[in-house]
C-alpha cells in the first residue's frame, strides 16, 4: 500500500522560504502569483493491507515525528 503525507505550515506561521520562492516566481514573470507557502511531501510504502488501520498508523507517524504540530499541519492520503 502506498500513502502520501503532506506537511504544511499552519496559517499565520511566517514562511520566509515561501516568500523567497514567491519573489523568485514573480521575477520570472509569473505576475499572477498572490502567495506561496512551501511544505513537505512524504511517500510511504506500507506492508499493511487495511486502509483504515494504515491511515491511523500514518497519522501517528505524523504526530510523533513527521510534523512538528506546533507549527505544521498534515494530511494523509492512501494513493494505491
Amino acid at each position, binding site marked *: 500500500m502506498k500513502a502520501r503525507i503532506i506537511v504544511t505550515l499552519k496559517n499565520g506561521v*511566517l514562511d520566509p522560504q515561501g516568500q523567497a520562492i514567491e519573489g523568485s516566481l514573480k521575477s520570472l514573470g509569473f505576475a499572477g502569483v498572490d502567495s506561496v507557502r512551501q511544505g513537505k511531501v512524504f511517500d510511504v510504502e506500507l506492508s499493511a493491507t487495511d486502509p483504515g488501520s494504515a491511515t491511523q498508523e500514518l497519522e501517528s507517524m505524523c504526530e510523533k515525528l513527521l510534523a512538528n504540530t506546533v507549527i505544521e499541519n498534515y494530511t494523509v492520503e492512501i494513493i494505491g
Partner: protein
Amino acid sequence: MKSAVVVFPGLNRDRDMIAAIEKIGGTPPAIVWHKDAELPDVDLIVIPGGFSYGDALRPGAIAARSPIMDVIRERAERGVKVLGVCNGFQILTEAGMLPGVLMRNASLRFVCREIKLKVANANTAFSNRYADGQIIRCPIAHHDGNYFADAETLQSIEDNGQVVFRYAEGTNPNGSLNDIAGITNAAGNVLGLMPHPENLIEPEHGGEDGRGIFAGLLT
C-alpha cells in the same frame, strides 16, 4: 558538581563545550554517546551545538526521538539541570522539553557573528551570575534560530519569567518572536539557548562574557 555532555552524530561544538566545562568547573564532564546504555548520575546534562543527523527532517528532530532523550527527560523531571545550546536548544524543543520551535532564520541566511544579549531573568540557575537587564556579548552560529510559539504559549512563558536571554534591542539576528534567545521550562531547570557562551570564556576568545552561565552552574 558532576556533569555530562551528550553527543549525537553530526554535532560539532561538543569539544568546545567539554573544554569550557572543564576550564570553568575544574572537572571534565562525562562524555556520553547517544547510544550508550547508561547516563551517569550527574547534576548537569549538556547537549551541545552542531547539526545532529545533518538536520534531516527538521533541526533536532531525529536526535529528539532517540532513546537517550527519554532518560534525559526523566532526569529533568527529577530536577537535574539540562542545558541545550544551539542544536541542543532545537533538540530540547523537538523533544517537547521546552515550549515552541526554532524555525529557519527570517533572513534565510546562516548567521555567524557576535551579537549582544540582554539578561531578561537573572533569577535562574543559568543566569544568576548576571544582573537583570545586563548586556553581554555572545557569538552565534545558526541557520534555524527563529523562535516561534503560539500566542498563548508565548504569553505564558513571558508571564512565568521563562525568557532568560533576549537579543538586545535592534539586534535580533533571526526573526525570533519577542527577541527570544534563551528560555527555560516552567520548572526552571532546563535552559535552551541559541548563542554559544562556551565560545566566549577566556581572554584568548576576545572576552569572557559567556563564563557566567557555566560559573553559575558548575561552581
